[in-house]
């Protein structure tokens, strides 16, 4: 069931928010020992909020499409009175006395917060194999990772525990788990959704967005959480639109770029076929597919890694005397960042501007670009490398090749489930657009979604 379907049932009085919330809590209780998607479940608060929602609806006070809907947030969003760990032992006892902007807006929209989801430690990695709160498992195959760092959010949505969960994305952390768990993941434009009250990984690359079961649901959530926030220096005053796409929208007049280079090399079986099929479906919906050449995205990824290493090291420097309490992978990344010089960081920031100016030329040719989200389906727990015909690659840089650079430019991007690989694992197609083109990206995604089979993981 999607948010839209549940909202219709709520308004028809065929179900209550309390019933929806109980179903969510029951499912978490029954399944989460196998998935480890949640760090904290707020059952009592959730049921109290659901009762308020039902009372308000009965009194004719309708807060909109999220009213009474059970949702979760990644455990980087602070929520008043609920501990916020950031997946780290260091913050294990942090109980904030305020709500993050996103949590405030979700509550104002009537959503019912059922808990905080598990993640890669400090949101700094792509497996969500958390050494402190348990390794999140992929609902499609529990011997595989769900992706990260918003792995708990994706697993919770894919497994039907909640209708939607918020994530954060610094180098792909919404889109990666969305693709590997077969759900929709939207990274909005930098500044579109407030970062206030989010434990940061990075100052200039962190983006907040929803993981949901449908494109329409992701759009409803974006409409609720987007908008200017004076408490976030990077927040944009660009007007918020109605992001909800029509059912099966026409793509007449849209030019969609299909890269000829970079995005289709070193990819697993089925990836190219699935994305090319999505391009054909876009054509059926009225779009024109334009072959495009993209600049040196590999170099962009390296520059983006340098910025992330340096900024994340600055964020966590005060806690480095406790690095013995960190997982090995995260500790190594922070140590690398501490060794970069100020000149290295500034050179990377100068290249960032030049590279953005180079890549943005593609927006003179097309409205958006369609790529695979990731080169591979979900890897196995403990897998560290990718094996190709012409060599091997470390998992993290290899798997993030198609998603990482976009964060450096702040552009919106969405991952849409676009089929299964030969092993039956979900694959994602990524739609990237220029700044503040979320409504158009969602329209393209909705047109594709209407033509693709809906994916559901095997019953747990």
């Amino acid at each position, binding site marked *: 069931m999607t948010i839209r379907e549940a909202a219709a049932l709520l308004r028809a009085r065929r179900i209550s928010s309390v019933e929806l919330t109980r179903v969510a809590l029951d499912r978490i209780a029954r399944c989460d020992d196998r998935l480890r998607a949640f760090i904290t479940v707020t059952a009592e608060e959730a049921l109290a909020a659901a009762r308020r929602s039902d009372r308000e609806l009965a009194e004719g006070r309708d807060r909109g499409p999220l009213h009474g809907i059970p949702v979760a947030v990644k455990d980087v969003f602070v929520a008043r009175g609920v501990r916020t760990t950031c997946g780290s032992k260091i913050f294990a006892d942090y109980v904030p006395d305020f709500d993050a902007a996103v949590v405030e807006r979700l509550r104002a929209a009537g959503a019912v917060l059922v808990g905080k989801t598990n993640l890669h430690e400090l949101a700094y990695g792509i497996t969500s194999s958390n050494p402190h709160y348990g390794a999140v498992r992929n609902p499609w195959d529990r011997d595989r990772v769900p992706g990260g760092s918003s792995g708990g959010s994706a697993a919770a949505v894919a497994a039907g525990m909640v209708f939607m969960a918020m994530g954060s994305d610094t180098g792909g952390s919404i889109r990666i788990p969305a693709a590997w768990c077969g759900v929709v993941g939207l990274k909005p434009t930098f500044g579109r959704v407030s970062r206030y009250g989010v434990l940061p990984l990075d100052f*200039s690359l962190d983006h907040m967005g929803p993981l949901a079961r449908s494109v329409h649901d992701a759009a409803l959530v974006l409409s609720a959480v987007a908008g200017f926030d004076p408490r976030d220096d990077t927040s944009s005053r660009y007007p918020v639109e109605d992001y909800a796409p029509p059912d099966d929208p026409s793509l007449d007049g849209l030019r969609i770029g299909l890269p000829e280079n970079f995005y289709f090399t070193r990819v697993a079986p089925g990836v190219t076929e699935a994305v090319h099929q999505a391009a054909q479906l876009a054509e059926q919906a009225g779009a024109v597919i334009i072959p495009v050449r993209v600049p040196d995205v590999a*170099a962009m990824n390296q*520059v983006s890694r340098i910025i992330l290493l340096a900024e994340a090291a600055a964020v966590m420097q005060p806690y480095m005397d406790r690095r013995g309490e960190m997982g090995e992978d995260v500790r*190594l990344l922070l140590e*690398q960042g501490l060794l*970069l*010089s100020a000149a290295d960081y500034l050179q990377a920031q100068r290249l*960032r501007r*030049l590279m*953005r100016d180079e890549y943005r030329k593609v927006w003179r040719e097309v409205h958006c670009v369609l790529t695979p989200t990731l080169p591979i389906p979900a890897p196995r727990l403990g897998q560290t490398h990718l094996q190709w015909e012409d060599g091997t690659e470390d998992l993290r840089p290899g798997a993030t090749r198609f998603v990482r650079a976009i964060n450096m430019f702040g552009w919106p991007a969405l991952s849409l489930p676009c089929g299964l690989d030969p092993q039956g694992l979900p694959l994602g197609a990524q739609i990237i657009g220029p700044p503040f083109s979320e409504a158009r990206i969602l329209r393209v995604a909705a047109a594709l979604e209407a033509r693709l089979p809906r994916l559901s993981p095997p019953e747990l």
Partner: protein
Amino acid sequence: MPDWRMLAAARGLSLPEDDLARVEAVLDELHAVLCERAAAIPLTAEPLISFRCETDEDAL
């Protein structure tokens, strides 16, 4: 290429040998790309860091 081991020591990071070897390998690769690209940056190119100097309404 910077001597990452010396830098680590200078910054008071006492890293185990295993960590140092892995840190060196990653940073050597990243630094090589950075240096190659940085050599071609036009002199006038500014870093893409957002800083806004705004009016101070509390100023006298």
